[in-house]
């Protein structure tokens, strides 16, 4: 599966965007510590067999620029809403957000009823569940690389082979610089309140599209109980757990993740509140009908 890279100028930002496949659009919003390289990820490649996968790098991540005025996920959500309108001409799209990308996806979904046709959140950040002396989200900035693998992978040894993070693997100077710039932007956007918007959980009630929330059972950055609370805050959302996976189930258990999300994305379930009726089933234009 070949992915091509292009650039899009929108709202004062130049976004790097990777595209692959054809069919109904599926936007993938990456996590903060995962390099946005869909061609290297089995889940993205496989989804591109049935969808036109579009994977932007968030402003300040990867090859995307970061204007001086952009300093919140709120800002980021509006940039993406502008981009969605420009890229897809107002047609609602399917969206899968992972980790930090899940927070962004939720903020997009609560702001605009017409932007999305279906939403998948994978180990998403963004809401506050616990009380004031408990943090829902591990302080990833203070945890050295090797220990962070233990929080993010069911099998940390595999994680060490599978991905680059600051302090993990053997990144080149250029790769590490990108990873650290990504970290810097994540810190800019999510330092305080830490990796969440105190208002978001209440607003999740506004989401009016079919939603699937998927969680790695061994995620210790955000626990499955947090994920369950996330799902329960979104009307009609379904919650699924991926066994033997941590914070990155799409890296650690790609087959299982695909098994859970693909039917949902191909044919998102109708929901009572979604007055627009069923979402058109995604039909692959490659290799015949499925």
């Amino acid at each position, binding site marked *: 599966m070949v992915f091509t890279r292009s650039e899009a100028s929108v709202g004062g930002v130049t976004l790097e965007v990777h595209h692959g496949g054809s069919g109904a659009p599926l936007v993938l919003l990456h996590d903060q510590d995962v390099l946005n390289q869909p061609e290297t990820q089995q889940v993205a490649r496989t989804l591109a067999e049935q969808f036109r996968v579009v994977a932007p790098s968030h402003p300040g991540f990867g090859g995307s620029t970061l204007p001086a005025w952009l300093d919140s996920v709120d800002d980021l959500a509006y940039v993406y809403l502008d981009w969605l309108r420009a890229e897809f001409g107002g047609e609602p799209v399917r969206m899968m957000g992972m980790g930090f990308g899940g927070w962004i996806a939720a903020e997009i979904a609560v702001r605009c009823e017409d932007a999305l046709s279906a939403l998948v959140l994978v180990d998403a950040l963004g809401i506050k569940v616990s009380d004031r002396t408990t943090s829902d989200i591990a302080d990833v900035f*203070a945890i050295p690389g090797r220990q962070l693998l233990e929080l993010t992978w069911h099998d940390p040894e595999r994680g060490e082979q599978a991905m680059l993070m600051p302090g993990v693997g053997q990144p080149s100077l250029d790769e590490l610089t990108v990873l*650290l710039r990504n970290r810097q932007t994540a810190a800019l956007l999510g*330092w305080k309140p830490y990796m969440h918007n105190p208002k978001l959980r209440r607003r999740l009630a506004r989401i009016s599209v079919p939603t699937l929330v998927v969680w790695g059972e061994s995620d210790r950055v955000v626990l499955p109980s947090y994920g369950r609370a996330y799902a329960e805050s979104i009307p009609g959302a379904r919650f699924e757990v991926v066994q033997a996976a941590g914070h990155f189930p799409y890296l650690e258990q790609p087959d299982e993740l695909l098994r859970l999300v693909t039917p949902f994305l191909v044919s998102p379930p109708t929901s009572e509140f979604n007055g627009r009726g069923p979402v058109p089933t995604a039909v692959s234009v490659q290799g015949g009908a499925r």
Partner: protein
Amino acid sequence: MKAYHFTEMPYPYVPEEVERALSSSRIVVPSKYFDPVKAADLYNRYLDEYEYADELGLDLLLNEHHQTLTCMDVAAPLSAAMLARRTKKANICILGSPIPHRDNPLRVAEEVAMLDVISRGRVISGFVRGVPTETQPSNTNPVLTRERFEEAHDLIVKAWTSHDGPFVWEGRFWQFRYVNVWPRPYQQPHPPIWISGSSVENVPWVADHQYTFASFLTAYDWTETLVNAYRTRCEAKGLPEPGPDKFAYLALCYTAETDEEAQEYGKNLLWYLNRYRHPGFNTPPGYAPPGAIAKMMLGLAGKPYKDSFESLQEKGIVLVGSPETMIKKIKYLHDRCNTGHLLMMNQAGFMSGEKVRRSMELFAREVYPAIKDLGEDRRTRPVQRELAAA
């Protein structure tokens, strides 16, 4: 040249195995290891040493840190206040107020103005961005410390220099509808402002504002680089050639009767350098550019402070010796690095009151007279015109 007595006011009694197990001397060391009774003795002894420095004719340097056994001085304005009343002549240099990490820059403006009036104009007001480990105690976004620093500085200076009633400030980080700071500072237009830093990127802003630039433990080589960056900037902007009054340098110092004794006891200064730096707290995102952090992580930048005691002396990070030796070393520092303000960490770790006072005495009586006129004839000429906004 002026000499400033300094201690970080450490609490050295936490068992080292605790620091080692946590890989940290800051942020996460439980306060159950802090004995307030012992600390009361330490605090009062350190403050006595500062008062003694004033009696000896030295100036005083204070700083502040948070959540660390290396420094119990959590509020430089508090220590400055205690000393403002109990000292007579010494200048009291706060270096510095961590202005990005304080919630309200106007509190800094008020506190320093009050200190300046009570001391009748003896305050030097340093502003610092804060070391990386100030991030967690204040929870200030490390990516924004430079921007916060500049806005806080601008607001403080405007508050000090506006005398016609309230003004409005609607900045990015702070908003006030009535800024009208009382008291006014004693010194006009305001106390001298010093800025500390160790990277070349910080220098142009300091030079443009004609503030004294202070570097801590930066060694002769790197200090020269910083000084040259300041000079170059002044030249480019048509500002006067910076004299030694524009440069302060901090070293770990010990003066003894003989070189042998200085070499022996002076090693106790290394306690300060040998503390533990947790990798999760030492380089917060945004504190330095990503490329610089990447180089450091890949071992492409030099490792600081892993030198021998001899090597630290060769580099000028440690200055110890008999009075004759100290005179030589300080003259060398002055000649090489244009240093006009010698900041002396005279006490670290377990160094006793008795030894520290003896060191201060020997310095004041036998070293200081030989160095105090260094650079007096090369003071920076005052700027004749208003600096245009950058």
